[in-house]
């Protein structure tokens, strides 16, 4: 079914138009990588704070208040540029196991980030309120870091599978 959808998408006017412009894919990929830079850096810095590998700087909730809006904006750009790349080369992406795994991990990362942000907004200082919360925060931080690294790796591996 997915293959049929890919074939249909590849035959559309838009797909043919994008695929016909040799600068299109590298340009969109550049925007995609720049947005990944924003997501990985903002989340990575917050994760290091959750893991208490970095203890200096403003309170976690202040840092999160600064960073998370940029994380969501970048994720918005990633969604748009990602869809453009799928439209241009449907089979390369949709039929690729690395791509499918990447999408599952992106979903998990979005859920983790929402959990982190919601707790932080409802109760500033939530993640440092007790030893149990700190441990939970550390687990969230490790999971988020591992997901960021794996998402980038899976993204790059799409080109090799």
């Amino acid at each position, binding site marked *: 079914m997915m293959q049929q959808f890919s074939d249909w998408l590849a035959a559309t006017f838009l797909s043919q138009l994008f695929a016909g412009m*040799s600068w299109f*894919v*590298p*340009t969109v*990929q*550049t925007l995609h*990588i*720049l947005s*990944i*830079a*924003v997501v*990985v*850096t*903002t989340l*990575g*810095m917050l994760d290091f704070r959750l893991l208490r590998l*970095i203890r*200096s*700087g*403003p309170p976690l909730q*202040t840092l999160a208040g*600064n960073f998370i809006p*940029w994380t969501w904006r970048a994720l918005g750009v990633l969604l748009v540029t990602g869809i453009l790349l799928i439209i241009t080369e449907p089979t390369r992406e949709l039929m690729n196991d690395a791509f499918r795994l990447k999408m599952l991990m992106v979903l998990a990362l979005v859920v983790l980030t929402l959990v982190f942000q919601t707790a932080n907004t409802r109760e500033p200082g939530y993640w440092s309120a007790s030893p149990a919360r700190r441990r939970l925060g550390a687990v969230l931080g490790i999971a988020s870091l591992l997901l960021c*690294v794996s998402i*980038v*790796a899976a993204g*790059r*591996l799409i*080109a*090799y599978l």
Partner: protein
Amino acid sequence: MNLLAMMTWLEHRPFAIAIAESTWLFPIVETVHVLALTVVVGSVGMMDLRLLGVGSKDRAASEVISSSLPWAWSAFAVAFVAGSMLFSSKAATYYVNLPFRIKMLCLALAAVNMLVFHFYTARGMAAWDRGTPPRAARFAAACSLTLWVVIVAAGRWIGFT
């Protein structure tokens, strides 16, 4: 011995041949390179956006810089080592590649820009640490941001040429 001959010599070193001939070594090193460069661009971008008055407005410029710099430098070290490994595998090809040369030129310009900022512009930072940075600082930040976008774009273009 001219530079091109040196590149040919480099790509015939055992470690360079190993990267070129292995199925998975190149993608793995490339993934490390991409992951590191996202952190470089993200942390440099954070400093630039603070200097431009766009992001982290409630944090002192010096605080944003001192918390981002360790990320930028450690990630740059990783990106540099991984990038050098990738380069060695096809040194002569990359050496004559136009996007590669543009990338190296922009890296050099970014270094000069950073040194000028560090040794001249940042000297009076105490006066504007919590306010709007002077024109020279905003100019340096705009140059840095532009150069890093071109570095990422040129890097991506290498794969398409």
